[in-house]
């Protein structure tokens, strides 16, 4: 079967657009976070570069690009240089499976606003989110520094404590939508968002993605109070920038996924779907920043305790309850 050239062109255009939007949003999320944290602390935040400081991300970019790219002499050069990309690329790739708007009808064909509508989309997300932690683990290992190593060890300990509950909290969504395909999950929420059926799963997922994007209160791998800067202590210049931007891309992507799984994706009244989707994703970003401005950091034994003894059992019970409910109402 010959692929349709128009379709290929459209997919490439979508990829380009998504990359542009995501990277710009991530840069402005850094700015938004600095401003919001400043307001929370009764300060003003960056307001010097351009009107209201809106050009601050550009200034940051220039600064990061012109800084020296240092590799510690005792470090493992190849891994050290690769690790930031390993952290940032899975975050960007995850967005490929997110449906970010209602399908367009152009020239008689249906064009889904989603880069790849895989039938195992949800599994791909789980897989990519585990790969992303390699960047953290290897970056810390290759730096050959005790703080970086401690940070990456914590990153791994954190991974095993939230991954399970994150996966389990998504199972009810799959049970309700009867598909791993993200567009099906969104379509299943056309009438009623899953958060109404599954508030518990939503809360478990929310806590897990907070841990996944290494944000306060779960920013143990970085923990600037204890570990200097954790796994990226030894990084400088744009390599540090990649870790940093990867983290913010992660926030946007995970916010988008949370919206997709529980808040009906791009479904919403009146406004076009694409606005609903981005509105919901950015609302999650705001929530993350707001939480960062409020809560203290947990100890990592507390996080593991919380993940294994609270979140995972809760998610399991929730799955059982959902199964029973589907069985009794004849949904199964």
């Amino acid at each position: 079967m010959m692929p349709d050239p128009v379709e290929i062109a459209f997919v490439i255009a979508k990829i380009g657009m998504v990359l542009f939007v995501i990277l710009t949003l991530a840069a402005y999320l850094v700015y938004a976070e600095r401003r919001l944290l400043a307001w929370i602390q009764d300060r003003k935040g960056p307001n010097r570069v351009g009107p209201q400081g809106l050009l601050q991300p550009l200034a940051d970019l220039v600064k990061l690009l012109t800084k020296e790219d240092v590799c510690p002499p005792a470090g493992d050069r190849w891994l050290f240089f690769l690790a930031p990309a390993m952290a940032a690329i899975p975050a960007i790739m995850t967005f490929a499976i997110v449906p970010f708007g209602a399908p367009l009808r152009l020239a008689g064909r249906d064009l889904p606003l989603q880069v790849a509508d895989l039938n195992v989309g949800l599994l791909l997300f789980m897989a990519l989110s585990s790969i992303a932690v390699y960047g953290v683990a290897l970056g810390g290992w290759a730096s050959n520094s005790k703080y970086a190593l401690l940070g990456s060890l914590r990153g791994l300990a954190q991974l095993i404590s939230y991954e399970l509950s994150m996966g389990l909290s998504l199972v009810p969504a799959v049970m309700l939508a009867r598909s791993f395909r993200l567009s099906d999950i969104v379509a299943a929420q056309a009438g009623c968002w899953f958060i109404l059926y599954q508030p518990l799963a939503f809360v478990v997922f929310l806590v897990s993605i907070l841990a996944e994007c290494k944000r306060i209160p779960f920013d143990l791998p970085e923990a600037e109070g204890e570990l200097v800067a954790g796994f990226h202590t030894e990084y400088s210049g744009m390599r540090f920038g990649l870790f940093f931007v990867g983290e913010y891309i992660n926030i946007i992507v995970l916010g988008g996924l949370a919206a997709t799984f529980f808040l009906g994706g791009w479904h919403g009244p009146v406004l076009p779907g694409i606005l609903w989707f981005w509105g919901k994703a950015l609302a999650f970003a705001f929530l993350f920043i707001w939480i960062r401005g409020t809560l203290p950091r947990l100890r990592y034994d507390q996080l593991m305790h919380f993940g294994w003894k609270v979140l995972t059992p809760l998610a399991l019970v929730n799955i059982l309850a959902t199964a029973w409910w589907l069985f009794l109402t004849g949904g199964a």
Partner: protein
Amino acid sequence: MRVVDDITAILTGLWTTLKHILRRPVTVQYPEEKRTPSPRYRARIILTRDPDGGERCVACYLCSAACPVDCISMQAEEVEGGRRRAAWFRINFSRCIFCGLCAEACPTTAIQMTPDYEICKRDVMDLVFEKEDLLVAHGGKDARYNFYRHAGIGVTQPRGEGAEERPPVDVRGLLP
């Protein structure tokens, strides 16, 4: 229930920070907005003059001795008529910590602190202020005080003619 308490605590915290987002920031945007410090603020140091226009400083070295970072130096000299003054007087503001001990030590209220806090220079040597830079044409915080009216006996006026000074007693007249 502990869980309920914990969740309430988290929500209370979130509510508090949300309120602060809407509050006016306390930041002072320095180069555009300038605060007026209180008159007692301790910044750039001046050497004042007495009401008659004479230099108050008598080069007694007390300020220099009191200074914890040793940033005041001077040399004393005596002019005709017996008044003392500093031949040169130098304060190195790159070392000064603006503690105000010099002003407290000065017996003549010559050296005083002012609220002018904007002393920044490109070159550190520009922060070394000489006597010409320090000397001002007014009396600072106390315009009326004149050291030589109260002390420095017989230097600027004959004995017994200073303020609050009684004519000298002829001790021989006290003999029985």
